[in-house]
């Protein structure tokens, strides 16, 4: 007769084996159902996309590939070239002055008084605040358990005021 300790080891092995068998059958049963009922995902297509992606990254990283010279274009597909600062001239619709396109935004900012004086009277109604689609309501982000005021804001252009102060994007039009 084996010693009590050996019995326990054997017994616990036995239970473990049973549990493991049971779990294996659980997984097999679930996979079998998914396959038979027609729910299995098209893994080949997905693997193909991943393969193409890996291939693409490798080829882009390869310095011998001409790749895309960032912002060093010679001609576009229409055979045109463009200066770094757009030089099309048009009239500012706020003040009437002639402005070069590439300098229009900074001009407009001053011209409109940085947006504060820019609001015309009739463009907002008070119902805008309750507009379901305004930024503040659950429209675009869905884990309400992430910081809902966290913004994912990637700005462009030269550094203006640095730091993490971003508007939270409520378009209520309130001052």
């Amino acid at each position, binding site marked *: 007769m084996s010693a009590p300790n050996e019995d326990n080891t054997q017994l616990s092995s036995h239970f473990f084996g049973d549990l493991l068998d049971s779990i*294996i059958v659980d997984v097999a*049963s*679930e996979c079998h*159902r*998914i396959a*038979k*009922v*027609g*729910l299995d*995902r*098209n893994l080949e297509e997905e693997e193909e*996309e*991943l393969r*193409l992606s*890996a291939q*693409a*990254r490798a*080829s882009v*990283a390869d310095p011998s590939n001409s790749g*895309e010279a960032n912002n060093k274009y010679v001609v*576009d*597909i*229409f*055979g045109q070239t463009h200066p770094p600062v*757009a030089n099309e001239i048009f009239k500012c*619709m*706020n003040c009437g002055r002639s402005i070069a*396109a*590439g*300098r229009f*935004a900074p001009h*407009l900012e001053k011209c409109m008084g940085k*947006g*504060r004086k820019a*609001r*015309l009277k*009739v*463009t907002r109604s008070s119902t*805008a605040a309750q*507009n379901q*689609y305004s930024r503040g309501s*659950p*429209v*675009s982000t*869905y*884990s309400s*358990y992430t910081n809902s005021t*966290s*913004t*994912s*804001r*990637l*700005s*462009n*252009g*030269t*550094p*203006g005021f640095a730091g993490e102060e971003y508007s939270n*994007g409520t*378009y209520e039009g309130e001052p």
Partner: protein
Amino acid sequence: MSSKINGNVSPQQCPHLLDFRSRNGSKPFRALQDCIRVKPPGGRAAIRREPSEVPGCGTCEESSRPRLYACVACAAVLCHSPPLHSHASTHALSNPGHEIAVDVDRAELFCCVCRDQVYDRDFDSAIVLAQSINAIATATTSTSGATAMQCNVAGSQPENLRKRRRVDYRPWAPDSREHVIIGNHSILLHDATNASLISSTELPRGLRGLNNLGNTCFMSSVLQALLHTPPLRNYFLSDRHNRYYCQQKNGAFNGTKNSILCLACDMDAMFSAVFSGDRTPYSPAKFLYSWWQHAANLASYEQQDAHEFFISVLDGIHEKVEKDKTKSRSPGSGECCIAHRVFSGILRSDVMCMACGFTSTTYDPCVDISLDLEPNQGGSGKSSSAKSHSSCNVEADCKGSNQNCGISTLKGCLERFTRAEKLGSDQKFFCQKCRVRQESLKQMSIRKLPLVSCFHIKRFEHSSIRKMSRKVDRYLQFPFSLDMAPYLSSSILRNRFGNRIFPFDGDEQDASNELSSEFELFAVVTHTGRLDAGHYVTYLRLSNQWYKCDDAWITRVNDSIVRAAQGYMMFYVQKMLYYKASEKQAAS
């Protein structure tokens, strides 16, 4: 995929099951309903005559077999333990009519002669109904008429999804008279055999650079995507928003105002200009001016975010329309304005009490989906084989791709988005059944897909400890073709109930929706550079060719450039609305 089993299609049944059904109907399955036990919350269904029954094989009296089956005909419990023995098979072979049994621990049908698991719709219905008794919901939208038991599970219609009368999709082909008309009014394309005559400047319509007006690449990048969003393009090019008529109707040209603020009018003007055939870069100055009036708090020429701009423009188009219409539209139906008709979908949120299984469901409209990148996997790329495949592991996000653990994918992000998430103990939800706050499980799913899905990747990381923000440059793989079926409410629910054959919320009964979960990528907005000093570029897919739109510069690029790019916003359109270039016949 999920629509295949919405109740119309049955998996192939073995002859014994068919025979059993023809002799007994579905009565034996329904009789089993009393024996179905479900461990909350949302646990697996098991078969027990008494709740505390410990089943054992009638022949060998072993309880510890991993597979015990109860004969549906006589309720004898027998084991199936290949290769040793199968008392279940012995029983079936010696008792005609007793071929079908049910797995007592998994509530799955088994044919003891074929020695294989088999599937039956009526059996599955009985199981799902037994499981849903635990999950009686009072959805926050009215579900008049539906029984409490079924309303959460089967086809509870949120009120903003009122059934529109559907017209069956029928492909059209011209008859002989129409053929003649088409022929007389068509411009011939170049003959394929004269391939050399096809000029390389036969470029897609609507391809036109947008001048940077001073740090406005956030705007030009999104505008390029919108200009080539098929349903939006079709709407404006079909003159559905005529800017002259709109301005006149709203009192412009009389009084002191020269024009009424209407982003749709400005958009209409832009579509006209961009699709005019003129290839010199267009300056969206008027659009900028109008947009700054609409989004006054963003009217600064520095640091703008493309996604914020996108949301703001849709909002601007919607708001103007809302003011015009006298009757209010139910949100989420997309009937209010073109912006929502194109981009608006409906998300479903389920919160399940972990104590009793009671589930509370809400529906919310959304115009895009913002996705978190996975938490830092710390040393991505190494030890991919060591990473486990356990679905419980919140950190490992490599489902479905063994060899690519470490690469973030869009599908991976969507899987995380629709994963059941345990709410922290500090976020206990008030359970209406238990009448106390309980720990809960929350799960999102997509109830209704929009025509165009915009995915926004949250590449922003904010550290409150270090009081700084940084951009996450991590690469994200995104497919050119995307099937959204696994993220639909019907699929998520179905999976929660063990993938049973049963019509779940969102399953469409008609075949015309079979393709409606397949999407094609048509635009990618990318960001390079730092958080506060970066640059946006859009890649457009037109006639299966990719074009890079870098402000005024339009160039052609190959697939690899796009696949390797750092996606910030990806635009997918429903496949049936997407026109691919047809394969040109090879010159002989």
